[in-house]
């Protein structure tokens, strides 16, 4: 774990998003809720958490406080913001960043206001999971992302499949129980690579209004044998928003200045502007989400 920047990792792990959750008026009247307009649930949710993990808490709150007549499964619960259903298989931090970057559907000031639904699951927009299995489903989605990241890094998924059953379980359970040590105990095994750079960096770029971009990004420049920086990558993928700074490789220290001068769009990562001069490999190792992907949102 020498190569893990623990201060950064710890800060990322502890990041939270304030949520204000209110009940949708249509669902409330259909389910005979009383005084629903008076009640909003205020919750601080970890950026690395997922919405299905808070579904049962939200439901309990509304059932207790508004006499909500809902007796279905937690899998029926879904969330939306500004009329757009929120994908339950994205981490909460990514959803928040995406929403903040979307100018057309600006979420307004914090706390982030979302609406909860108990009826009319939008099966055409969200993946439907079978009832009584909401937690296993989100775990399966998470593990498939981990495997995908492993494949991109090493070309195989031996590292994930090589984990013991207990470690695989612990990887997810530590996320649910929010245990930093337990998570990194397993996750560090996935990061170690033997005498070689990762083939590709698991990276997804989200631009509001556009499809998600996921391309095989090599970790180093084959010609110069230098690690790519974030700027290199963004400039090659989104040349209309990011300029390839020819003198960008002059030094990493110069990147602070270059940021000021640049009219570039902003790359949001974990709620902050990511410095563009950072080597992508370091970013991937230290600033990935628990699913081992870098989810970068571009604010234009």
């Amino acid at each position, binding site marked *: 774990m020498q*190569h893990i920047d623990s201060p950064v990792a710890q800060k990322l792990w502890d990041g939270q*998003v*304030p949520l204000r959750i209110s009940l949708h008026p249509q669902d409330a009247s259909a389910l005979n809720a009383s005084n629903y307009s008076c009640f909003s649930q205020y919750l601080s949710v970890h950026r690395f958490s997922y919405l299905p993990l808070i579904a049962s808490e939200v439901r309990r709150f509304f059932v207790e*406080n508004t006499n909500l007549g809902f007796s279905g499964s937690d899998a029926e619960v879904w969330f939306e913001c500004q009329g757009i259903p929120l994908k339950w298989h994205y981490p909460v931090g990514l959803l928040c960043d995406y929403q903040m970057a979307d100018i057309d559907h600006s979420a307004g000031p914090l706390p982030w206001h979302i609406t909860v639904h108990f009826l009319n699951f939008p099966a055409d927009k969200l993946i439907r999971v079978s009832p009584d299995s909401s937690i296993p489903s989100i775990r399966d989605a998470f593990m498939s992302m981990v495997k995908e990241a492993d494949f991109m890094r090493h070309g195989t998924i031996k590292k994930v499949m090589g984990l013991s059953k207990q470690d695989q379980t612990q990887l997810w359970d530590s996320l649910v129980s929010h245990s930093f040590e337990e998570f990194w105990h397993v996750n560090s095994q996935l990061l170690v690579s033997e005498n070689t750079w990762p083939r590709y960096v698991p990276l997804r770029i989200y631009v509001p209004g556009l499809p998600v971009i996921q391309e095989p990004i090599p970790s180093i420049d084959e010609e110069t044998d230098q690690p790519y920086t974030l700027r290199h990558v963004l400039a090659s993928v989104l040349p209309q928003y990011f300029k390839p700074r020819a003198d960008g490789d002059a030094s990493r220290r110069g990147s602070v200045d270059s940021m000021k001068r640049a009219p570039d769009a902003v790359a949001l990562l974990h709620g902050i*502007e990511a410095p563009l001069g950072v080597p992508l490999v370091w970013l991937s190792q230290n600033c990935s989400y628990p699913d081992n992907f870098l989810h970068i949102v571009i604010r234009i």
Partner: protein
Amino acid sequence: MTSFVVQPPPGTAWHELILSRLAERDAREKDAFTELFAAHAEARHLASTLESELSSLKGEHAQALKVAALAKEFGSPDSARRFAELEEQVHKLKDERSELYKTQGQNAQKLLELMEAVQKADGTVATLQDENQTLTAKLKTVSIGLRDAQELIREKDHVIQILRDELATHQLELVQREEQLTEREKKVKTLQEENTSLVDRWILLKQEQAARMNEANEYVEFALKSKATSPPLSRQHSLTEKIYDAGMAVSPSFLPQVATKKMSAHDAEINCIQLSPDGNLLATGGNDKRVILYDAYTGGMKSTLSGPLQSVMSIAFNSASELVMGTSNDNSAKIWNVSTGRLKHTLTGHIGKVFAAKFTDAGRVVSGSHDRTIKVWDLNKGFCADTIFTLSSCNDLCLLNGDGTIIASGHLDNNVRIWDTRSKQLIKEISGIHHGQITGVTMHPTQNAILTTSRDNTLKLIDLHSYQTIKTYS
């Protein structure tokens, strides 16, 4: 860990930048709201507890109002009226009660009657039970009788089966007899023809003889006439001849009193002993399942014949002293050649111990067995020729003539029976002469009488013409 891992560069500008921006973010998104949300949750909790308290107080209030209304009602003039109504009700109820007492009395009466009826019924039940017991006892005796009867029927069936089997054998024999009869008739016819021819020749011879006789008579008359003066013959010679004959007829007899020889041969008891007709051999048979032959003059053992599976019960020689036969408890009789000592025949067919057997001059064997039969065996063919059912186990038998067509047998039922073996008919049953089972019968060598031995410890000589006891030896 390896050089390929970008080490965290503490102190680099972008690293500091990231940390500071994260701190800024946490201040904005996390720290600002943590306390606020906690306070909100606290307030929410407080509000909900207050609400629940309020609702419970409301409930209590409603209860109190009800109690107050009740209290008002009891104080009103309506209550007096209600009291009167209630008294009236009490009256009614009392009337109803007296009515009920009456019905109760009637019911008690009825109950008594019913009790009596029950007692009567009990009496009848007891009598019926008695009857039932007697009937079951009868049933038991009847069923026992039935079982006995069934057993009897089964036994009878068994007997019938046996009789049927015998009938079948008889019918078979009948067919054989008829065949033999036709053969005999043919023989008789040929014999008659021969007879007539012989008679004719005989007559011719007789006539010839008569002619010669006449001639001789004439010659004698002529001689007598010519020798009328010659002296008469002396009769001395014929007299001495008579005296000599008389001396031969009176042969001296005496009882043996000293054992001249002692032979020990058998390992177990000796059951039978027999001297051969030519007097050369002596044979013994015993419980050691063997027959032993001795030289009758020297007493030396000649040969040991084995083969029977059980004790040997009797021994017989044929008239030429070539064959010796031993009968055995293993239901068979065995015949050995005397000179070679080799087994020649095994006669099997009896289903009981074979106690006696004799050779006839006609190449047959007659055997008597405890299976209540006498069997005649043809030694040329080697199997049973006839079976006589004797009705009682046969202990011993003897031939009354040489070819064994008439035999006498001594039985377990104290009787002696005389049989014709050709017709298989009982000629005579001699009963009442002995008080124990007959153990032996023997033909008298010269007279027409038989000697019997019995378990009543007597020997009797019986005349075969009158079937009367001539003499009793005890």
